[in-house]
């Protein structure tokens, strides 16, 4: 276990150039709800994926993964996020008979103004490696949810503007209609590699846990099924870790 002094915070800003859709866990695939920004498990999995692309599977498994599963992760959503439901064609490959079936589905998509920021706390000796990995992340969740890393700094997360588990929301937070939803997170800091990188035929364990999270976003307008969310700090007076 590393001491806090040997850790540092990295803050990576991401421009979201087009619509994106990170599905709310447990929402139906055929009627999916979207998150305003990726959740903590999505960030960890993206770090693993980006790391494998840059450094290879073995290095990530042996060197970076112990940090990825144990690190603190905070996500600051974009300043404004619009959510709208879209009707899409979905395709499913049938095994017997071999054919592709098509069906309409509904899926919410998000469109953002302003960058989203991912904060990760990493061991100082691995700082350069994680900077490379953060720069390699090109999408969140599904490949069509494009993202581009515009910059990485050493910066402490402003917790008042980051998504939080409901149970950690401070009592003095002003009561507002903050956007809340279920998010997934790694089960604990001892999640094993094979649990998050399952192999074909292997036993699938529950490496993720679900929790209710609150986003520092409030709804400012609604039109039919569309909503506009604007970032608002949980508390106005404090913005520190």
């Amino acid at each position, binding site marked *: 276990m590393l001491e806090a002094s040997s850790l540092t915070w990295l803050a990576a800003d991401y421009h*979201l*150039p*087009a619509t994106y859709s990170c599905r709310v866990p447990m929402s139906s695939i055929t009627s999916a709800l979207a998150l305003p920004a990726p959740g903590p498990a999505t960030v960890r999995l993206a770090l693993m994926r980006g790391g*494998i*692309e*840059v450094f*290879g599977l073995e290095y990530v498994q042996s060197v970076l993964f112990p940090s990825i599963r144990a690190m603190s992760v905070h996500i600051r959503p974009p300043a404004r996020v619009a959510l709208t439901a879209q009707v899409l064609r979905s395709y499913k490959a049938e095994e017997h008979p071999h054919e592709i079936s098509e069906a309409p589905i509904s899926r919410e998509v998000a469109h953002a103004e302003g960058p989203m920021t991912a904060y990760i706390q990493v061991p100082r000796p691995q700082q350069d490696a994680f900077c490379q990995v953060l720069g390699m992340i*090109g999408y969140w969740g599904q490949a069509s949810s494009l993202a*581009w890393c515009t910059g990485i700094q050493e910066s402490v997360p402003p917790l008042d503007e980051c998504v939080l588990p409901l149970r950690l929301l401070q009592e003095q937070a002003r009561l507002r209609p903050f956007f809340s939803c279920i998010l997934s997170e790694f089960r604990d800091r001892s999640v094993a590699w094979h649990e998050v990188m399952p192999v074909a035929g292997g036993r699938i364990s529950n490496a993720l846990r679900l929790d209710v999270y609150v986003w520092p976003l409030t709804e400012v307008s609604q039109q039919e099924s569309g909503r506009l969310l604007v970032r608002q700090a949980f508390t106005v007076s404090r913005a520190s870790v």
Partner: protein
Amino acid sequence: MLMKMTARSGEYALCMRYKCAGIGMDTDKWKLVVDDDQERARRHAAALMALRDCLLSPQGALTATMLPHLTGLRGAIVARSSTGRAPIYSALESDFIPRLCALASDSCSVSSFDTIDEFHAQMRALIDSTRPALPAACHALG
């Protein structure tokens, strides 16, 4: 029989990303599956041609009756020649072309286009002169 149908035109913004290093790769483990360079080059060219043609000859709703077609095309092609992500920026921003052009560097070429023939010529050059790279992990492993 007379039939009335509304017709419309619109300006659409679109971002696309193509990662040639993923050609012939198992992109979960980033291991090379197709190790024949010729085959990788052939697939790379096919992907670029498909990307070009989906813009120059679009499909969409009412393709059979209304035949959606281009009346103009402008944008920028950003190509990264080393490990990392090519910048991608929202085309809804009115200044997206100069902003992308300002990001050009030794490892990142940016070429803008204002007409469909300029776009076609640039894609032709990419198809003819580029080959798919190998991802950084392959270089790291030797």
